[in-house]
């Protein structure tokens, strides 16, 4: 789009009206102060005017609120970091060809859901032949060898296996986020990687995936890349080619 505004506001039914919806609980009984307390919070969040459209007692000590109001904050689109893929998405054929011609052996990936997390559907979606959203998983790629260790694997077990298999990439899945379990387990993996390959140039690529990583960066976690909700196997395969075989000429 050309001439698109760079500064925008939330939109209710008119450009610039700034309307947002909010809901939350306060540890306050539903007495004379409750709505006022909710409005105080709304104001601190920048809603002015704000209307408490619903408030409901949940037992004697808590009240639930729904608030609508206008925020004055501006969103500056020029300040938004655009998360563009830094690589093109390739077909399975292109991936296989790139590996065969540049690496001349199978590319090895070792994956697991680490720690107490037992969710494997996301990891399997990337690794298993069955794949995700109609796309086949990495097992389907002739030039990729997949070791899927399943779930509730410790960081040490994963790293040891990666070493034994001479893995090119190490894939960790994390789905449980309560008490930041996902960050905790991912850091265990990156620490184990550093301990095992003190020379960073020899270590495999470290990848983590899961639906709720958007509060952190790869650097925060000491990994090479994070894949979020909706990731497809082809994206992961293409990233592997991009990151591991950088000078590969990819057929157009």
């Amino acid at each position, binding site marked *: 789009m050309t001439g698109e505004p760079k500064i925008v506001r939330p939109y209710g*039914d008119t450009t610039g009206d700034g309307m947002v919806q909010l809901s939350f609980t306060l540890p306050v009984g539903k007495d004379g102060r409750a709505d006022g307390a909710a409005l105080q919070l709304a104001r601190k969040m920048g809603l002015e005017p704000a209307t408490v459209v*619903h408030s409901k007692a949940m037992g004697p000590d808590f009240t639930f609120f729904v608030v*609508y109001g206008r925020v004055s904050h501006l969103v500056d689109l020029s300040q938004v970091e655009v998360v563009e893929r830094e690589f093109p998405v390739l077909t399975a054929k292109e991936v296989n060809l790139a590996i065969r011609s540049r690496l001349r052996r199978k590319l090895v990936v070792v994956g697991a859901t680490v720690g107490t997390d037992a969710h494997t559907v996301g990891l399997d979606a990337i690794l298993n032949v069955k794949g995700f959203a109609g796309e086949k998983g990495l097992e389907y790629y002739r030039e990729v060898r997949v070791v899927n260790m399943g779930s509730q694997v410790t960081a040490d077990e994963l790293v040891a296996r990666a070493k034994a298999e001479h893995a090119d990439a190490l894939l960790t899945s994390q789905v449980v986020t309560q008490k930041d379990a996902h960050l905790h387990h991912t850091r265990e993996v990156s620490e184990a990687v550093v301990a095992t390959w003190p020379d960073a140039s020899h270590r495999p690529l470290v990848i983590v995936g899961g639906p709720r990583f958007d509060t952190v960066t790869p650097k925060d976690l000491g990994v090479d890349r994070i894949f979020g909700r909706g990731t497809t196997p082809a994206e992961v395969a293409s990233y592997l080619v991009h990151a591991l075989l950088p000078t590969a000429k990819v057929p157009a």
Partner: protein
Amino acid sequence: MPQTKLGLDPAVVRRARALARKAAAPVEKLAHTHTTVSVERATLRLAGVTGADATGMPWVNHLVDAVREQVGLEYGVALPVWHALASGEHTDLVAMAEKAATGGVRFALPTGKDAERAAKAARKAVGTGFVRIDRNRRDRNKLLAKLGDPPKPWIYLIVATGDIYEDIPQAQAAAREGADIVAVIRSTGQSLLDYVPEGATREGYAGTYATQENFRLMRAALDDVSRELGRYVRLTNYASGLCMPEIAALAGLERLDMMLNDCMYGIIFRDINPQRTFIDQRFSRAIHARAGIVINTGEDNYLTTADAVDAAHTVIVSQLLNERFGLEAGLQPWQLGLGHAFEINPDIPDSFRLELAHALLVRELFPEAPLKYMPPTKHMSGNVFAGYLLDAFFNLVGVMTGQGIILVGMMTEGIHTPFLSDRDLALENVNYVRNAVGDLAEDFRPAPGGFVVERAHRVLGESVELLQRIVDDGLLDAIADGTFGITKRPADGGKGLDGVVKKADGYLNPASDLLEEGRT
């Protein structure tokens, strides 16, 4: 779809219809023997009189007011106006109206040959309006055939920004998201104006003014998006209020497809005089009939002031009356979008089954009507989650009972006119329900003698009783007593009675004549 789930007794149904016919008769007679300022203005509009003075007062108002002042309206506006035009002093009707506005035209009732000539000229002029209306009807049918007519139930969405130029993109967006029908809500206050505003408008409270130009702009925008989507998107507005006949005429002239039009809504909810309303209604419906427009009646509104369980039978009675008045005015059964609503208090036990019973009763009583089913409004609070849930069960009743037109409920109904995202979420809701539930109606077979069947029979029984009382007391008295929407409206109260005129012998209205002759 064969609908015999309730096993209604055909004799009772016949009796209900016979009573409705009896109840309506005196009012129909009133409508035939009276005219109103708006009926006369509508006649002039059909003859092509457009435009307004600098203050926005339309020329048709000036003309009718002048005729009324000088000759009275007992004979209709046509004879005096076309007689004056025949004098040759005026290049055309608009020019004459401009002069009339400042008292510069002398009107008289022509007689003899003059009268014949005036009548002929008037008939010819008004005829051009019907040529256009008839062409629009054919164009609609062509577009429906070419672009495709969406299957029922039709999804009905509202736009209400107050600004026609904001409404247009929102309406197109709604169509792209799945709306089969777009309704442009009217500004609060317009219904009590005794004239139709002119031109494209950008200022309205909680709705956009109904004007001929706004109609034209929106229909053109929807034609564009219809072509884009390969599906004809219908346009709806309101033939209600003091200018009901004129708006009906404009709707026909600008190819609107459906119109909110009720025999009693203006009386109950806008305090418009009952007589005025019934007379205006008769004329407006005859035009809708000619234009192939589907009307939507307003029984849903009763349940915002009355209780939906206690007053369930008043909805049925009103539908029977609306049906009767509609048929008498020339509407076909497929044009009768009778209204009802999902308004039972969600806190009472079995509310959903009661809604099912009511919706199914309406469905089976009016098997050919494209029923317009309205979502919950009264019991929608600020709890948007609860609202989203209630709307889902409304959608479910709609699908289970084969309603024809589903007005999509908004989770924020208790708060504000819809946000863009409210509409999007509402469509997700209805789409989920329709897709997930499929032909659940197949599995829904209320047990004979069970809760649903008993409730439906009971409401029908109460309706027959009420109709009998209305026949005995007279419909106008029933309205005065607060029968509908528990709102009392005496026959000589309310706004607009001064615009009602008893027709004299020799009254002429070429529009009415052409409408009656054109009846199929």
